[in-house]
Every structure is written in C-alpha cells, then in structure tokens.
C-alpha cells in the first residue's frame, strides 16, 4: 500500500488524538497544532510530486479489490487540493496561536481543527461516493463545533442556520447516493464511470445528477443555495472564518468537478448548461450582495459566493483549458480568501470593529499592513501581475474559445465590481481619516507582545508572498493545473489506476 496516500489522513488524525490526550497542556496542544499541519502540508507536497512523476495512484483499504472495498485515489487535482489544504491549515494554525482565546483552546479548538483538516483531505482523496459522504460528515461535525465554540449570541444564530442547511444538503446527498446505488449497483467512482458510459437509464440518471448538483451546490454556496454562507461565516473567530472561507466551500466545488467530469458526462448539453447558468448567476448575485454590505467580513463572505461562480464556470464550459482554469482559480482563491479573512482579523484587533464606517486611517499608521492587504485584494479583483489575473485570464480565454461570449462578459464585469468592493474596503478602512476617538471599539493589539504580533503577521505575509509568486511565475502552476485538467477530462487513467484495467 502506498503510504503517501494515507499520510494526509493519518497525520491530522494522530495530531488530533495527541492534542486531545494533551488536553491539560496548552503548550503541547499548540506544538501539535503547528507540527501536525506543517507535516500535512509537507505530505501534500510530496503527494503532488509523486503523482506528477508516477501518474494517478490508488490504494485499496483493507486489501479488498477495487469495486468492493474503499479506494483511496490521488490524481493531480486531489493531490493539489490536499497540499493547499495543508498550507491553509498551517497558516491558520499559526495565526490561531495568537488569536484564539484560552477558553476556546481549553474546549478543544486545536483537535477540532485537525479533525476538520482530516475530513477535508479525506473528501479529496476518496474514490468512493459513500465514503465521500462519510468524509463530508466528519468535516461537517468538526465545522459545526468550531462554528459554535465560544457560545456568543451571533455564533449561535449563525450556527443554527449553518447546521440546518448542511444537514439538508447531507440528506439530499445521501438520497442521491442511494438512488445511484439502486440503479447502478456500485458506488466506486471509477467503476461507476465505466458502467455509466453505456447505461440505458438516462432519465433517472439525470435526476440523480441534479440531486448531486443540489447537494454539492449547497455546500459550495452556488446560486440560489448560498444564503446560509453570508449569514454565518462572519460569526465565529477570524481564524475559524478564514479556514472555512478558504477550504469548506471548495470541498463542495471539488466534489462538483469530480462528479461532473467523471460520472455525469452522458448529457453534457443538459447538465453542464445548467451549471453554466448557475455559474453566471452565482457570480452576479454574489458580487451585487457584496456591494450592498458595509462590514468587512460580510463583504468578503459575499465575494466567496461570487468567486465560486468562476470556479464552476470552467466546469460548465467543459473543455480541458476551462477546467484547468477552474483548478487554477481554486488554488488562487483559497490562498487569497484565507488571507483576506486573516487580514480582517488584524484590522479588527487594531481598531476593534469590522464596520467600515468606524474604521479608518490604517494607511498612515500601518503602511506595511496596508500593502499586505492590497496584494490579496487586488489579486481577488484580478489585476496583473497577481495570481487572480492569470486565474481569470485562463478562464476567459477558455470561454472565448468555447464561444460563450455572454458569460465571458459577465465574468469580466464581475471582476470590475469586485475591484469596486475591494477599493471600498481600501478607501474606508485604510485611506480615509482615522475615526474620532470614542467611536471605535476597544483595540486589542496595542497591549500585545511582539511575539504575538509576529505570529499574526507571519501567515499573512506568507500567503501574500504565495499570491505574488503565483502571479509572477504562473507557468509552473498553470502546467500543474492543465495536467490535472487533462486527467479529469480523460478518466481512462483514473479508471485504470483504481480498477487495474483499461476501460
């Protein structure tokens, strides 16, 4: 069995167990938090390297041969997602060291973060639909508790909506899995891909495909199923918001891309046209929602929705170049969005509020922080030479090739409106005169030690550096994304890796 495939699941699990055992020792928990996520990141990078050189890899759990047992598969897309999940886990774990209060730490913040990462990596690596459901639930349970941990009023109100909508999505997912099993008699994704090619049950399959679209669409916050996201993502502590914003909706997008490239490609004209329409509407509603907001994290939450539209836009175009664009976009977006949320936390600590009206003057007092904000903000809007430009560029180019001019125009227009939102934050929080004293809340950072300030800025600077690097040297990552897209669009290699025979 290939150990590299299992490590991204084992490392967070062991880290979670160790830090649960070390409940009484705050220092031990914090050590495990950083080393565990760092090891996860390293194992993710090794996995990418190994898949790049040796092709798609699969391991059969319990040595049951493929369609019967549970398969763990890593193609390039999965490997990239695991690596980036480890990267975000590390950034957020470091950031949490300085920002999560003692009480949350005592009630198991660190183990929960590890379990969340384990669920996320499991969802990326599994090759079995029911197992995907189980990993979703692992991830959801951890996220429920992280969302509610602390018990503030806003958190409780956010958590109720978050929990409810996710449970509905799980029920739909479960029903879809059940129907698919009833029709096809297997849940192994590679096996399904083979059997779905020449199935006579087209009518029922399209229904099942739509059920999957709804289930994953809720998790990915696609129009019109996104209302839970801006209602809940701004309620927990910033570190939790950041990891949710970076990873959780992207697990939904990952599942959508996986299912609609591997399994449901019999009726592309129908299913992928629906996806295209959803993508366009998601982009527009998300960005318009953001324009109406005046609170830092709510603006960012709406932009998650809008950006999800871009990611599934590439899936809707359904060409290799477009799917490569989507993958590139996901990588770029995870880094940038996590960073923006972390930055919103720093702003909150400096001036004690998220309300843009009460913020101000940060450029004169903290020029370095302002530059750090500008990098991800402009990257989100898609300005060259930052990562967002190349992400949008590849998508737009693929869209023009596929002759979807209206959607390309929408994507570009939404980019412009994103820039508007980002300049609004810039003008209000950083550029305008500082607010009158007494209007702001209690700033927290002034009294803090240099070490804690360093721990807060370090992950932000690292993520900003990653954004810059992706922008300045986009080619290696683009190559990676297009190889991953080729693997997705030609599932033969995937099927062979899992089942051991050519389709």
């Amino acid at each position: 069995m290939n150990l590299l495939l299992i490590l991204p699941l084992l490392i967070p699990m062991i880290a979670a167990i160790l830090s649960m055992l070390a409940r009484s020792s705050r220092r031990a928990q914090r050590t495990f938090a950083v080393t565990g996520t760092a090891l996860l990141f390293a194992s993710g990078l090794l996995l990418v390297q190994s898949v790049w050189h040796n092709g798609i890899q699969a391991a059969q759990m319990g040595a049951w041969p493929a369609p019967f047992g549970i398969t763990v598969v890593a193609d390039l897309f999965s490997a990239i997602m695991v690596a980036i999940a480890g990267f975000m886990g590390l950034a957020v774990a470091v950031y949490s060291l300085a920002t999560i209060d003692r009480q949350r730490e005592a009630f198991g913040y660190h183990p929960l973060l590890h379990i969340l990462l384990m669920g996320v990596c499991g969802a990326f690596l599994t090759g079995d639909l029911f197992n995907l459901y189980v990993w979703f639930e692992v991830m959801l349970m951890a996220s429920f508790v992280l969302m509610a941990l602390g018990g503030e009023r806003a958190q409780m109100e956010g958590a109720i909506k978050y929990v409810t909508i996710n449970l509905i999505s799980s029920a739909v997912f479960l029903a879809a899995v059940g129907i698919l099993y009833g029709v096809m008699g297997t849940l192994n994704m590679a096996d399904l891909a083979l059997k779905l090619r020449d199935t006579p049950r087209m009518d029922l399959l399209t229904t099942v495909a739509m059920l999957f679209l709804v289930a994953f669409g809720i998790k990915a916050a696609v129009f019109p199923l996104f209302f839970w996201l801006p209602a809940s993502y701004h309620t927990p502590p910033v570190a939790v918001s950041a990891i949710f914003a970076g990873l959780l909706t992207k697990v939904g997008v990952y599942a959508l891309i996986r299912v609609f490239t591997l399994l449901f490609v019999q009726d592309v004209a129908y299913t992928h046209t629906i996806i295209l329409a959803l993508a366009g509407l998601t982009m527009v509603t998300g960005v318009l929602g953001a324009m109406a907001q005046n609170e830092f994290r709510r603006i960012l939450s709406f932009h998650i929705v809008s950006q999800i539209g871009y990611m599934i836009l590439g899936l809707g175009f359904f060409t290799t170049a477009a799917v490569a664009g989507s993958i590139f976009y996901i990588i770029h977006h995870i880094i940038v969005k996590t960073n923006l949320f972390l930055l919103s936390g720093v702003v909150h600590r400096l001036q004690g509020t998220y309300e843009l009206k009460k913020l101000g003057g940060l450029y004169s007092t903290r020029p370095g922080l302002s530059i750090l904000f500008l990098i991800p903000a402009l990257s989100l809007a898609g300005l060259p030479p930052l990562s967002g430009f190349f992400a949008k560029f590849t998508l737009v180019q693929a869209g023009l090739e596929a002759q979807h001019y209206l959607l390309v125009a929408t994507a570009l227009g939404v980019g412009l409106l994103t820039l508007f939102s980002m300049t609004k934050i810039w003008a209000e929080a950083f550029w305008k005169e500082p607010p009158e004293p007494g209007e702001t809340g209690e700033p927290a950072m002034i009294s803090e030690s240099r070490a804690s300030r360093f721990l807060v800025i370090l992950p932000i600077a690292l993520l900003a550096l990653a954004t810059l690097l992706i922008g300045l040297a986009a080619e290696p990552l683009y190559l990676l994304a297009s190889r991953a897209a080729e693997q997705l669009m030609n599932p033969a290699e995937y099927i062979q890796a899992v089942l051991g025979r050519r389709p």
Partner: protein
Amino acid sequence: METLLAFVIGGLYAAGLFMMLRRSIVKLIIGIGLLGHAANLLIFTIAGLTRARPPLIPATPDSPSVFADPLPQALILTAIVIGFAVQAFALVLIHRVVQTVGTDDLDNMKATDT
C-alpha cells in the same frame, strides 16, 4: 411492498420539510431527523427488497441466482450512526441557543442575516 414504502418515504420527506419550515427550533430538529429517516428508507427501498434470501452464497456453480444484497443495510447503518451523532449535537446546540438567545423562535434570530 415497494409502493407502500414509496408512500411512507414521500410522507416522511413531506413531514420533515413541513417541520423545518416551522418557527420553533425544536421542530426544526425533528424535521431534520425525519429527513434523515426518509433518506435511509429510500436507500433501503431502491436498492431492492429481497425477501427470505441469503446475503452470502458459496462460489459454486449451483449457488442460488437470487440473493439479498447486504450493502444497502451497511450503508444505512453507517448513515444512521452519523445521523444519531448529528442529532445529538443539534440537540445540544439548540439547548445552548435557547440559553443564549433566550427564545426558540427562529424569527428572532435574524441578527446575523444579511
């Protein structure tokens, strides 16, 4: 039997959705539970109801051609366990919500909405 179960499942879905649309968070949780049961029964039914047949058969030429598929039960069992854990969490959550917010009416929990 399938027809009867189909009606039961439909009824469970309808009842679950109806409960979730109520304002009380206790009914919300009951609704989620019903939805989970409906999904489980759906798997049970659609995967094929086979009566009085063995699930495990020897690999011999004269082994019976009709046999029960044990996998749906395994899937449902897993789903039930997960559903149980989620319900337990949801109950604790609504308890805390009532303590913190001071009401069980969803209409009074709109402060974080946009």
